[in-house]
């Protein structure tokens, strides 16, 4: 897909992230906006997911290990036509399919329930093992956070993905260097992530997570890797696309008020 078309879709996803969190008066805009370009390219170019196969497991699947970025996932699933755009306004409401953190079985296209950090990669390991057992060539994609890499389970999971030679799974780390309590490097430094993942047996690719060409090339390279999982370490900007949210820790888990919603929307519409 043309980069300009992707940019238009991603921009609309960002507007919907702002809308969802504004309507819910809660949620996590910062880490949703940092993941938007990666998720957009993944769902519109990389994964073989469409309206016909969305309710089946006979396709590529995705695990949002950083489940708090659910506004981004729901907005992308909506852009794919799996969720009515109007429904995005029900995010976090009583009875909504769009739970604060994704719930599989409730919402089409949500392939695993996530939200408790550190568990998604392990779940993906099980899915990738299942695909190997079944002898299919579907791929499992994961997006996890950089702060999430402080969880020991992340490393258990990558170790096991390497041990079982799971070249059918690809993990992307949304490396925006912010977590609730501050900069990741100040709270509990996870660097050097590339060397750590390499040491655990993964093929590592470092990219700019807002450059479609680099994201595209990384996912293409991952498909050619044999005998080991791939980890894409994507440098991103938390709050990307909204001037006052960018690289600002205060926008981790806070929703915009009416004025901020209008300003953010106006900024995104001007792009």
């Amino acid at each position, binding site marked *: 897909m043309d980069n300009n078309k992707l940019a238009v879709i991603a921009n609309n996803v960002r507007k919907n992230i702002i809308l969802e969190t504004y309507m819910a008066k809660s949620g996590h805009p910062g880490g949703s906006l940092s993941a938007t370009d990666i998720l957009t390219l993944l769902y519109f170019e990389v994964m073989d997911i469409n309206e016909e196969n969305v309710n089946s497991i006979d396709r590529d699947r995705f695990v949002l290990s950083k489940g708090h970025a659910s506004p981004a996932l729901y907005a992308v699933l909506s852009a794919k036509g799996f969720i009515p755009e109007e429904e995005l306004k029900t995010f976090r409401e009583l009875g909504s399919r769009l739970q604060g953190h994704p719930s599989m079985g409730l919402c089409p296209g949500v392939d*695993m329930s996530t939200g408790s950090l550190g*568990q998604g990669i392990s779940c993906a390991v*099980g899915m990738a093992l*299942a695909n190997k057992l079944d002898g299919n060539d579907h791929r499992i994609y994961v997006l996890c956070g950089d702060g999430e890499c402080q969880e020991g*389970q992340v490393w258990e*999971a990558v170790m096991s993905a390497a041990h079982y030679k799971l070249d059918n799974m690809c993990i992307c780390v949304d490396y925006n260097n912010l977590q609730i309590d501050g900069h990741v490097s100040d709270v509990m430094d996870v660097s050097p992530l590339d060397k750590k993942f390499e040491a655990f047996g993964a093929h590592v690719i470092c990219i700019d997570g807002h450059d479609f060409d680099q994201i595209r090339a990384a996912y293409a390279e991952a498909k050619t890797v044999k005998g080991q999982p791939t980890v894409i370490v994507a440098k991103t900007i938390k709050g990307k696309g909204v001037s006052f949210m960018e690289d600002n820790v205060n926008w981790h888990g806070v929703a915009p008020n009416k004025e901020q919603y209008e300003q953010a929307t106006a900024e995104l519409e001007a792009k």
Partner: protein
Amino acid sequence: MASIATRIAFGDALKELMAEDKNIVAFDADLAGSTKSAEAKKVDPNRHFDMGIAEANMMCAAAGMAASGKIAFVSSFAMFATGRAFEQIRNSVGYPHANVKICASHAGISVGEDGATHQCIEDISLLRGIPGMKVVVPCDYNEAKAAIRAIAYEDGPCYVRLGRSGVEEFFDENYVFEFGKGIVLNKGEKVAIVATGSMVQESMKAKDMMNINPTVVNMHTIKPIDKDLIIELAKTHKYMIAAEEHSIIGGLGSAVAEVLAEAGTGCQLIRIGIQDIFGESGKPGELFEKYGISANKIAEKVNSLD
């Protein structure tokens, strides 16, 4: 009478299930020889995954397998399967109602010499609290085998508590496992002993040391608990004794107390179990005696009632 550990039944049942159904997979965390999940390897080594000493990862990988349409059996020692990986069970197995069957061995103090770090007395309590989780504690080989075959095709997550040490056989190979249905092993009067797991053996032994003939029930399913049977027993007995090789907090005793209190029957409950204290190293029999859950101690308790 033969004395076989329920974990042996797990290995045997898993081996049969793996041979019958290619959709079944097994996970273990470096304890396949002890939990007996290694039996599955004899059928198909490609469907048995040793995940190393990393229970949290194992539990979620099993959830991922279940999300891929498989029936995933997971085993380790009860302490690590349910303690270390509790939150993984809660969020990645329980919440998505995954077809993950946790069959944990070495539960309770009959682990023996390994001591308190390995003697899990909180697992029933932990897993009983997870919505949708079924909890089974078989009392002998044939019951364990039948229970494991039954949970394979029960929708959603299940927990089966298994022991390290041998237990007497009460049932033969024709035994049919019925979820949530307690079994009256001896019909007596005044005192109803509701026992689970290894305490069925101890209670049946204790029965012959008592100055009354008590009713003895094998309560193999802790969740869903057999409310009807408990209420019926409460109406026809003066005392009810809940006996478990588990903490008296949160396990069978608590489940029975909940039923009794809500039914308002007035039957007095006595909880036999580990009295909110850690175990220690020792032989299983010695530990049962010291911690008050042996046949002797159960009989002593009943004989002291007026």
